């Protein structure tokens, strides 16, 4: 059953839904330990609450169901804030930014969406880039949806797709795999990630927002951000249309 903040404090343990294989956001490292940007922020949150943090690595498509069904208490799971999702979960203030772009081989000329016609484009199923790419190409190109980033990137490396929709970290990973072969082609949008809690649960939402305010003002947030993103945190918007940051 879904637990309240007080119940979590009483039991001394918070279950955090997180991605298990999305470097550098949330991933299980080679020693089998949960790591990444989200993991560090979640650990700060746990410290703030004074509870132990237990990570539940979730597949992309399982994140919302796991939260709604009470399997996890909260999502630090690279959740891009969308209107559609805001109907299912409550977002906090944004705490990270993500740019969704299209990546492809250098020798392929892609400068506009129109150049994508007839191509096969890989995306992780149910991700922001899935939505962005699908909306952009409509029926002119084939969108191939894989289980996760790993599979989508692998598909391009294997030549199974000619482009992938990805976030700002894809470039680094593609370079690691095959240096100087791929490049960023088209930016679709920048999305912001929020912490996910269940709809209507005011206690969770307020606690999280207060925590975010705190780490953003005392510099902790910037430290973690630079560690994982290799850049300073951008300016986050005060509001996003149709996506409330607080419970009314």
């Amino acid at each position, binding site marked *: 059953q879904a637990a309240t903040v007080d119940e979590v404090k009483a039991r001394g343990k918070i279950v955090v839904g997180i991605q298990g294989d999305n470097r550098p956001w949330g991933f299980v490292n*080679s020693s089998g330990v949960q790591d990444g940007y989200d993991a560090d922020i979640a650990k700060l949150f746990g410290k703030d609450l004074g509870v132990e943090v237990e990570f*539940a690595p979730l597949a992309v498509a399982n994140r919302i169901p796991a939260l709604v*069904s009470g*399997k996890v208490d909260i999502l630090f799971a690279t959740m891009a804030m969308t209107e559609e999702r805001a109907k299912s979960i409550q977002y906090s203030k944004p705490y990270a930014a993500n740019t969704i772009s299209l990546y492809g081989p250098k020798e392929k000329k892609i400068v506009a969406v129109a150049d994508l016609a007839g191509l096969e484009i890989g995306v992780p199923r149910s991700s922001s880039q899935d939505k962005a790419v699908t909306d952009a190409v409509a029926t002119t190109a084939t969108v191939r949806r894989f289980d996760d980033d790993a*599979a989508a*990137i*692998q598909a391009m490396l*294997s030549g199974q797709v000619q482009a992938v929709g990805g976030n700002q970290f894809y470039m680094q990973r593609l370079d*690691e795999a095959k240096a100087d072969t791929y490049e960023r082609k088209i930016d679709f949008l920048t999305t912001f990630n929020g912490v996910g809690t269940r709809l209507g649960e005011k206690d969770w939402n307020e606690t999280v927002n207060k925590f975010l305010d705190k780490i953003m003002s005392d510099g902790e947030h910037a430290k973690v951000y630079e560690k994982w993103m290799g850049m300073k945190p951008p300016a986050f918007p005060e509001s996003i249309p149709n996506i409330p940051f607080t419970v009314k």
Partner: protein
Amino acid sequence: MNIIGPNEILFLLQGLKWTILLSAIGFVGGGVFGLLVALARTSNWKSLRRTTAGYISVFQGTPLLMQLFVVYYGITLIGMEVDAWVAVTIALTLHASAYLGEIWRGAIQAVPKGQSEAANALGLHYVSRTKDIILPQALRLSLPATVGFLVQLIKGTSLAAIVGFIELARAGQIVSNQTYKPLLVFGIVGAVYFVICWPLSLYGARLENRLAAAAAR
């Protein structure tokens, strides 16, 4: 980190640990319930036979992947707090009990009718007849098929990845993505499965030959 070093191997081995654990859970759970299913399937009670026949046909007629999904998402709907462990345990148990139940039903029915008649004539009751006379013979007959199913089950646990288990196959996918050496990684993963499953397969084949030789005598 473009090489497959000790870390990566260690990671794969941790996945292997889950694979073995999940297989063990499925086999034990499936074994216990499968026995009940087999007994129900061969009982004198027609509606019980029918029900278990339906049970078997449902779980043999749907993909394990779907069983995992439905249980994983379904259990919370009936208001129970579960983690992936419980879901996977339930799903694998349901799945394995249907297959093992069917295998064992066949074996129970293959025990000659004279055996249960002799037991009846001696006045032995259902429990003793089943436990002392029928099951020991049936289990022996079914051993090759049972071992064969165990191999299927070990391979089937690779699907538990979808509810969040980083077992061997999933670990392989992750390492492949970190090292960009899919040929090598899937080769290793395949080899590890092979190393576990092949001896079992050989053992099953040997048991089968031995039974066939005994039957030919």
